[in-house]
């Protein structure tokens, strides 16, 4: 039972002790409303610039949210127009050539309902991981990862630590390498069985770090470590949902004669530098989800940087360290 569930049950349970309660349906008039444009776009130097457009719907509407497919999006780089995006598929607008660069500012503009929707973001400069280490927690599927970095002094920095277990599967036929599959688990830091203060899964070592309740994104600021060299102590479960063999469609019981395979395991440690707007968005999204079902807390609205709309146009840039977990020393192909 996670913290969110605990909280809901505990509060409601205590109240249930006090009295019999009841529910009734209320009329809820949301008044006249023009749907607003929703922008979903987070850019980074390793990917082509991509934007998704949709629109808001009534809170009582249970229908599918429809994408916006009929717009043109003007893209500016450091105030210079660089491309006009047109609809590609399912609400996505893809750039043909823009890989965002560190330190540059990108701006989007599109028309909506007689007005202009716009947003901008400056791609941050990544901070290198100086060193990283990892170990198992005995008899569990949990890993502890330590990562050291030096926070640039002066300007405020916003970070996200991301831990990605990765499995590399090498398949051989009669000793010859014929196939490699790489699987990366998307879950970054699982907080399922941690709770309350610890739930974020990141504990500072040495210097305190800004923490957030149920920090499922693993985000923090340098507010309290400005200019310091800091070691993060993060924890993540290391497992894949199901056997690797099933994921790559290998049945160990019916492997054809002559076929062998090996699995190497790695942990990819990412330290991402986030734009302020993306950090605020993730922080508010995190708290939005935490308090979403708890009626006793002030609900959290998403912090958006979209002018005349809602959503996020943010950016990040990161550095990576790969930690070997189980790597076979020699593979047949390398003999």
């Amino acid at each position, binding site marked *: 039972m996670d913290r969110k569930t605990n909280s809901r049950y505990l509060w409601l349970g205590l109240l249930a002790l*006090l009295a019999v309660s009841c529910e009734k349906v209320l009329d809820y008039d949301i008044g006249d409303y023009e749907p607003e444009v929703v922008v979903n776009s987070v850019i980074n130097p390793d990917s082509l610039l991509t934007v998704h457009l949709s629109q808001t719907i009534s809170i009582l509407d249970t229908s599918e949210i429809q994408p916006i497919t009929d717009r043109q999006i003007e893209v500016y780089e450091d105030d210079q127009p660089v491309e006009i995006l047109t609809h590609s598929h399912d609400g996505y607008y893809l750039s043909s050539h823009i890989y965002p660069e560190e330190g540059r500012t990108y701006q989007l503009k599109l028309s909506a309902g007689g007005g202009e929707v716009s947003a901008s973001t400056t791609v941050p400069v990544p901070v290198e991981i100086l060193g990283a280490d990892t170990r198992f927690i005995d008899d569990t599927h949990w890993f502890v990862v330590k990562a050291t970095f030096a926070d640039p002094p002066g300007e405020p920095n916003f970070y996200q630590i991301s831990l990605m277990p990765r499995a590399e599967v090498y398949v051989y036929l009669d000793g010859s390498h014929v196939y490699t599959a790489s699987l990366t688990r998307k879950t970054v830091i699982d907080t399922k069985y941690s709770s309350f203060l610890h739930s974020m899964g990141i504990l500072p070592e040495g210097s305190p770090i800004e923490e957030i309740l149920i920090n499922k994104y693993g985000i923090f600021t340098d507010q309290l470590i400005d200019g310091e060299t800091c070691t993060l102590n993060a924890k993540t479960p290391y497992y894949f949902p199901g056997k690797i063999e099933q994921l790559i469609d290998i049945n160990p019981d019916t492997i054809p004669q002559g076929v062998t395979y090996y699995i190497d395991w790695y942990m990819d440690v990412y330290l991402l530098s986030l734009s302020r707007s993306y950090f605020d968005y993730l922080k508010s999204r995190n708290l939005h989800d935490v308090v979403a079902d708890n009626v006793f807390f002030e609900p959290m609205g998403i912090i958006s940087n979209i002018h005349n709309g809602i959503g996020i146009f943010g950016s990040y840039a990161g550095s990576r360290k790969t930690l070997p977990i189980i790597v076979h020393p020699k593979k047949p192909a390398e003999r």
Partner: protein
Amino acid sequence: MAIKTTRGNSILLFFLILFTGISGRLLAQEYTISGTVTDDRTGERKAGATLMIHQQEAEYFTDTTGFYSLKVSGGPVWMSAGYEGYITAYFQFRIRKDTTINIRLQKEIFLDEIEVTANSIESNMARTQMSTFAIPTGNVLTLPSFLGETDIIRSTQLATGVQSGNEGSMGFFVRGGSAGQNLILMDGIPLYTINHMLGIYSVFNTDAIRSANLYKGGFPARYGGRLSSVLDIGLKEGNMTQYHGNVSLGLIFSKINLEGPILKDKISFHISARRTYADLIYKAIQKPANLPANNGDLFFYDYNAKLTVKMSENSRLTLGAFKGVDETAMRLSDRFVHKNVLYTEINNLSMNWNNFTAYLKWNKTYSNRLIGNMMLAYNNYLFDLNYDYYLEKENSGKANTFEFAYGSGIKDLLFNLNYSYVPSENHYVTFGMNLTNQCYNPDTDLPESAEEENRGGNSVFKLEGRIQKGYLYLEDDIRISEKLNTSVGAHLSGLVVDGRFYSGLEPRLSLRYLFSDRISFKSSYTRMNQYLHLLSTATISSPVDLWVPVTKKVKPEKSSQVALGLTYGLSETYEVNLETYYKKLKGVIAYKDGETFTGSTLGWEDKIEAGEGTSYGAELLFRKTKGKTYGWIGYTLSWSNRQFENINYGKVFPYRYDRRHDLNVVVMHDFSDRIQAGFTWIFGTGNAASLSAHQFMAKSFPHTPDDEGIVKYFHERNSYRMPAYHRLDLSVNFYKKKKYGTRTWKIGLYNAYNHQNPFFLFFGYDDSREVASTGPDGEVVYSSPKVLKQFSLLPVLPAVSYSYRF
């Protein structure tokens, strides 16, 4: 050699009096007030009736013949007379000669929630003080208001300008202020929590209460430290001549009250105690400790004890103590099979409160013109929350555990001096000082877990530390003419924290003008400073509300309030009172958007921000104070807003307890000496709430665990109004004289017409209907429509209790 009076001499004299108690040769004429206290109906003289001279904090009793004689200094006198089972009578007058006052007390008229104030219309007209609500609370408060107990805080919530919080809670909100802006004094000692059983009851035992006054504005200079109200509750002293007591049996708890002389006319005691049996009921109905079992525990007890020593005719020493203990626990357990393995999961949550105060007070009448008291007090408030989680995999010999403990507390050691001085018949001067050493004791425990990596402990706030603070005050109630009175005062407060010194000069000014003997006009201006903040995360008063001090970064809260009032006495029976007010708040704190109470080992000050607030409104009170039927109708029209730079996009938003209309109707009727009945009807605009009107799609991004999902879109904070709140409560009391006293059966009905009042709102589905829509493949699909739902807490609740007074 003649002494030349200088400003310096005057100040020196002031402090000599203040710190040494030397009165000098400032004796004024002393007058005698004497008379009898009798039953209004039967004329029976009442032995052991209590006479209070409030400005002297002196208490007297009638002798066995119901006669009394006491001496007071010339000038204004505020006096009350009370007796067990009778309405306390209040008088305010000026005395210029020996006077005989024969007091006829009315038998208590019962209402399920409050005893009618017996302030005479004349006294309300004459007093300079405005914006007050006197809650005389003799032992007449015997009928249940809620589950068997009348409560002083629920009575306070019936005053104009006072809003209750959520249903069932003890919080109250005065003229747009927050719960943390109420100074709640028990015998002069500030309390930091007043809740029992998560707010169902307050810590105030009505059997122990001598007087209760709520100040909403025009604060006398002796009060400070909170912005919005002062609830000053005085506790009883023991009867010096006779033994009295009562025993009450209620649905949730029982209580006992005893008082009497230890040494007749020399030493008396007064003890009141309560204990719930909710814990015993739970134990009886709960399953055994075997799993699975979901159960809880609610327990509290409290006691008030007071020992009074009459050292001389002019000197009285009082030793008092209060202790309140609350324990609340919740246990949720489960067993489940996952992949053929049996798991046992247990969640334990417990919350405990502990209040302890002890004090020594010395009252001294130095002369006919100077009286004073000195108090040394200790106050300890502690709260702790413990949570542990346990997940065991069968036959593995291992368990995943997590523990979390959190605590906070405040310890005060305070020293008070209060003096009243009557230099002439046209002046009534009060002055005094306070020194407080305040210790913040978070008592945070860093739990040890089975696994090092599961250790959960980071203190949220580093509150350990001490604060030294104090104040001086001086006020003069000046009679300028027969028609014009004014009260001019100042409260100078200061605080030292982390080497930083904060101070504030708080002027207090009140004015009363009598247009005629039926119409009086009053006005006041007050400024207040508050050096403590109550930081709330939840939308209801909750355990995670934290008292946090001012720091170098977090500055004090400040308020300024102007009030105007008009009192019109229609007759000796009916009175109309109209007040308007405007209050400006500065430095009020709240969490920034996206922040909450956990999450940082340091720097909590950076999670909050200071903002401003305004509140204004009008309060209309129509009272009938005499006759078989009496009561009042109070109506409040008010606005209350807040503004923070980083909350709600910097825009002004309604305070959660902004309540446009608030109406209280209180009616009591005395059918006979044996049957009394009453009702209250309460109506209030619904609380402001933040509801999303729309939703949108949030896509999944790299390095985030989210799949794409729907998130709620909030346009404005507190832009939605919950449905209006209204409730009717009824009560009937039956009395019967017995050999050794009076027994009382009390029958009440809370929420008599069973109105479903909103406790909170949420979005759900209406499973009584289905609507058709088109599916992704063009097919027709049916589903329950999404709707807004209201959760109501307290339906109609009957209550009965039995008490016996002797």
